[in-house]
């Protein structure tokens, strides 16, 4: 622990939630430590290209340009004024006894905290499609990052498939930048999308913008599809086979596929920090528990998409709320948060609409030969076999079948794996197959990073 007078608050993540949390702490006179994996603060949605890139914010962030500029300026201002400490290009790999193991460009070191605000963001939520292990298949988020941060498309003829707001947005962004999009395949049927409209009306401007983008895609967009498989040669995808809403078999030539079913929260550090989890029925995933302000466990606060997927605007609000809760608990003067609490409730209504409109398809019926864990090539059949020995429990399935033990530690397979294990064991819901426990290090760490400081 830091001891002494001024409490040491550490913020993990410098996206919209982390930046606004840091700003609230700085306004109260604290000097937070902000740890982030990127070179420059902004997070994924407001990610900044490297120095020397010239596209203006309007090109990079579209209608959200002013928000991105404001966030970047807020962070850069605090950094220039010496009001916070920024550990850039740094990952938190482990949490123990009030300290974080930080892996940075110069090696590893421990950072002690009195209070911890986790704003760890989200990643693509993936349902495996047969053939997705091939090179040239990416998350939708990956394709957006390539475009935003590198000015590049990850293929010459791209099919985007999955569901959720990013599917439409990325298609429009790629087309606008001069990329070729061969098809946009949405697994959500139109009637489901209409059913979500009630919730979406909580943010009418946002919803209408989505519809306008959809209109620009015209004949490229197909709702209610089923994805059969990605055909590939040694170089990567050559086509995707799918069925349209009428059940008609279709095949679209392509050399790259982007996949994503909205997002899932990055919750590994919350797990290591001792937060409790609950299964969320509408998002079909385990999420950390926190009060409305983001208080999760003793001295630990959660904000932004790492707590639940509410999007960037809500993340700014949640960042301020988590920092205000932290200040309250420290007995320090906190800002008035009544308006932010109202805003957050509206964002939650909207997100419920999104979850309704763009459901995650159960992967329970994926063919046996489908690779579920793309890190280690574990198939659905191999996963189903573990149920005979370990029963319908995901941690047993992991130790028996290695699903969740590979490079990504289950980030991209565990949701589908839980559905498959649960269905195979005759359980009604993936919740009943349990929750895959996080294990440190949550990012790959050289063994030396752990040995040097074993007694530190």
């Amino acid at each position, binding site marked *: 622990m830091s001891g002494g007078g001024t409490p040491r608050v550490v913020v993990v993540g410098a996206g919209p939630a982390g930046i606004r949390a840091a700003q609230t702490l700085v306004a109260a006179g604290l000097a937070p430590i902000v740890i982030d994996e990127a070179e420059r603060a902004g997070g994924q949605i407001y990610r900044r290209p490297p120095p020397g890139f010239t596209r203006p914010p309007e090109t990079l962030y579209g209608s959200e340009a002013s928000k991105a500029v404001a966030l970047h300026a807020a962070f850069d201002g605090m950094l220039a004024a010496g009001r916070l400490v920024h550990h850039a290009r740094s990952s938190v790999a482990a949490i123990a006894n009030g300290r974080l193991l930080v892996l940075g460009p110069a090696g590893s070191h421990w950072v002690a905290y009195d209070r911890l605000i986790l704003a760890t963001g989200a990643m693509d939520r993936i349902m495996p499609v047969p053939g997705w292990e091939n090179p040239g298949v990416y998350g939708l988020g*990956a394709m957006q990052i390539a475009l935003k941060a590198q*000015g590049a498309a990850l293929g010459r003829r791209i099919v985007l498939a999955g569901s959720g707001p990013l599917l439409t947005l990325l298609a429009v962004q790629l087309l606008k930048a001069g990329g070729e999009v061969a098809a946009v395949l949405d697994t959500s049927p139109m009637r489901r999308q209409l059913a979500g409209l009630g919730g979406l009306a909580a943010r009418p401007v946002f919803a209408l913008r989505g519809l306008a983008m959809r209109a620009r895609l015209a004949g490229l967009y197909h709702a209610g599809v089923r994805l059969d498989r990605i055909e590939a040669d040694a*170089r990567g995808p050559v086509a995707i086979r799918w069925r349209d809403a009428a059940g008609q078999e279709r095949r679209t030539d392509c050399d790259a596929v982007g996949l994503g079913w909205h997002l899932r929260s990055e919750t590994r550090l919350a797990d290591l920090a001792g937060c409790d989890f609950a299964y969320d029925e509408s998002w079909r995933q385990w999420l950390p528990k926190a009060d409305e302000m983001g208080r999760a466990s003793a001295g630990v606060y959660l904000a932004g998409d790492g707590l639940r997927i509410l999007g960037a605007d809500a993340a700014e609000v949640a960042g301020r709320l988590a920092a205000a809760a932290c200040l309250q608990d420290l007995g320090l003067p906190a800002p008035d948060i009544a308006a932010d609490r109202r805003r957050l409730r509206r964002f939650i209504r909207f997100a419920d609409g999104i979850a309704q409109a763009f459901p995650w398809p159960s992967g329970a019926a994926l063919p046996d030969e489908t690779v579920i864990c793309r890190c280690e090539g574990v198939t659905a059949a191999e996963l189903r076999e573990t149920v005979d020995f370990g029963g319908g429990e995901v941690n047993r399935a992991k130790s028996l079948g290695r699903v969740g033990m590979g490079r990504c530690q289950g980030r991209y397979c565990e949701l589908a794996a839980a559905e498959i294990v649960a269905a195979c064991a005759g359980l009604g819901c993936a919740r009943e197959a349990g929750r895959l426990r996080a294990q440190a290090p949550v990012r790959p760490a050289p063994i030396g990073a752990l040995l040097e400081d074993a007694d530190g």
Partner: protein
Amino acid sequence: MSAAGHPAGRLVRLAETNRAPMRFVLDGAERQALAGDTVLSAILSVAPALRHSEFGVETRAGFCLMGACQDCWVWQEEGPRIRACSTPLTEGMRLLTDAPGDWS
């Protein structure tokens, strides 16, 4: 055959093409990239993949580009492996799509 054995790259540059050129070496051959490229962008602009899968016949070309999936770790001729999506390319970097020496 190395994972970079095919002639053309996977990545298509749509913008920011006026950056200064930068040289790097991939599997022993000198290649060109642009200042500000990540290692992933540099390799995939001249090759279809970054590495071989340890568990299947296919090659790999990254997946998340945000440091979450760890699919894109590549070898250097010397020094530690690096995560291609989050490592900036530096002038003269010597990269490999296969493990060096007696690793494979």
